[in-house]
């Protein structure tokens, strides 16, 4: 007779049925929703709250991203937000009592044109003024840090240098979600999967409940953390968001010996590459140009990305693609997120993180929880208000964020 299977490991969270009413409901069980719930419970003592997820936990962008974490953004507002997140990343494994393999192996952003070089040097200067660790590397230093990079100048987009942030790196995204979920559960937060929000109950302009496929649930407050589906939820609530949802793809190769010591990104040729702990090469592409909710993108985008990757890393030429997949990212026109109040009373929104919100997960949760609990933004997210599209106080991070992460 075959040996008995080992016992199933303990579940990290329970699967409670929704209660009739909560003090706050978070819509979306990705990283941002879970982090928000965690900080609501931990920093603001709000434990009678629920996270509603239409599918399974972290089944959206959270476990589809390429896990790059960095804080070298250009403007003061973004540097403050992302650096706050990076500092939290450094302490969260201990705080959440979960080693999600945050690896500070550094991130390099390549420059391929004179325009890139100037923009990158400007960004390094701005970063240093904001206390963000940033350096400019010439091509020889690039090669020393990442020997598999081709720095010859006879390729289509030669490497003319790079910015480098040593404290940046990667983490295991699904474990990050589980780490937050376990702590949320311990603190009394209800994590409710397979619960899709289909509408809102309002009293005048004030939200008082959410309609779901598992019934109507009353709530004092609602926080939207639905990433690519934010516009759909806003429309249900009766307001608009300046967001366009696009497919964004990534892929992995089969497992290889460790060959790639850091993370390399190139905005110009739309590719970013790291090697996961197990050995897969993890690569991300640019978005498909059209709006899409299909969680899949076009093959020509991948083809373009692979061409660039193979030119930059000639040793990848014989690696095989193992899996490709796509997510739905919520882009804004200034490539910065929206975290704050909405035109609907007691409803708050965290969205617009687009192609690069994994790195922001801790500070999105931290500042959004503050906003929900107190009804007003934290000083870190105040500039990221929805109103900036009306006042014109945009935070243009296309140089630092554009396609990249």
């Amino acid at each position, binding site marked *: 007779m075959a040996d008995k299977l080992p016992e199933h490991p303990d579940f990290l969270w329970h699967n409670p049925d929704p209660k009739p009413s909560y003090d706050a409901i978070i819509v979306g069980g990705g990283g941002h929703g879970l982090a928000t719930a965690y900080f609501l419970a931990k920093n603001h003592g709000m434990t009678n709250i629920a996270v509603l997820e239409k599918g399974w936990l972290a089944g959206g962008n959270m476990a589809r991203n390429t896990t790059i974490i960095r804080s070298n953004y250009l403007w003061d507002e973004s540097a403050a937000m992302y650096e706050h997140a990076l500092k939290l990343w450094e302490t969260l494994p201990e705080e959440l009592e979960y080693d999600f393999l945050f690896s500070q192996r550094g991130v390099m952003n390549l420059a391929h044109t004179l325009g890139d070089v100037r923009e990158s040097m400007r960004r390094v200067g701005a970063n240093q003024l904001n206390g963000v660790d940033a350096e400019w590397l010439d091509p020889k230093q690039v090669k020393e840090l990442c020997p598999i990079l081709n720095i010859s100048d006879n390729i289509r987009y030669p490497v003319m240098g790079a910015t480098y942030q040593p404290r940046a790196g990667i983490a295991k995204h699904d474990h990050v979600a589980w780490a937050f979920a376990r702590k949320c559960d311990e603190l009394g937060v209800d994590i409710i999967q397979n619960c899709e929000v289909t509408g809102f109950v309002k009293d005048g302009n004030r939200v008082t409940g959410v309609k779901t496929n598992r019934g109507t649930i009353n709530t004092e407050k609602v926080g939207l953390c639905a990433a690519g*589906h934010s*516009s*759909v939820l806003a429309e249900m609530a009766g307001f*608009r*968001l*300046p*967001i*366009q*949802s696009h497919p964004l793809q990534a892929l992995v190769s089969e497992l290889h010996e460790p060959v790639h010591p850091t993370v390399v990104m190139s905005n110009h040729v739309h590719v970013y590459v790291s090697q996961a702990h197990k050995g897969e090469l993890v690569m991300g592409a640019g978005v498909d*140009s*059209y*709006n*899409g*909710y*299909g969680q899949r993108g*076009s*093959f*020509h985008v991948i083809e373009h990305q692979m061409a660039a990757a193979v030119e930059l890393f000639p040793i990848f030429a014989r690696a095989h693609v193992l899996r490709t997949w796509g997510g739905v990212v919520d882009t804004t*026109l200034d490539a910065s997120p929206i975290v704050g109040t909405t035109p609907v009373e007691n409803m708050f929104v965290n969205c617009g993180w687009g192609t690069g919100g994994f790195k922001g997960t801790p500070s999105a949760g931290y500042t959004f929880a503050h906003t929900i609990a107190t009804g007003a933004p934290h000083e870190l997210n105040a500039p990221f208000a929805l109103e900036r*599209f*009306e*006042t*014109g106080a945009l935070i243009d991070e296309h140089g630092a964020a554009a396609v990249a992460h």
Partner: protein
Amino acid sequence: MLLISCPNCGSRDETEFHYGGQAHVPYPENPDELTDRQWAEFLFYRDNTKGSFAERWLHSTGCRQWFNMLRDTVTYDIQAIYPMGAPRPAPNTDQPADFGTASLAPDSTTTGTTGPSVASTDLGPAEPAATAPKGATQ
């Protein structure tokens, strides 16, 4: 990769085209009278429809002409292709995606004087969509 039927050139790979975002968003008629809120709407707010979406495409490496397309943003199914300036047709999901051939579309740059050449029998009655004000071209 989408296979897109340019009204002038016929079926071509998506890589020959450039995406132009939501269709039927007219330039404000009285720009100097707009409030900041209205400017914000015009500059930064576009529909982000999950489902049938009217959008503009440019055949940038072909005839270099703009045209409109009705496409499902979940299945990516192309439901109609019609000239600039024509009102948004009703989606017809029975039609194959490549019915909008050159012979059916007179001039993709028309600005509203020519009716939607593909709408008459193929697409059923054109519905006056709220998002398609008269004379909207860009």
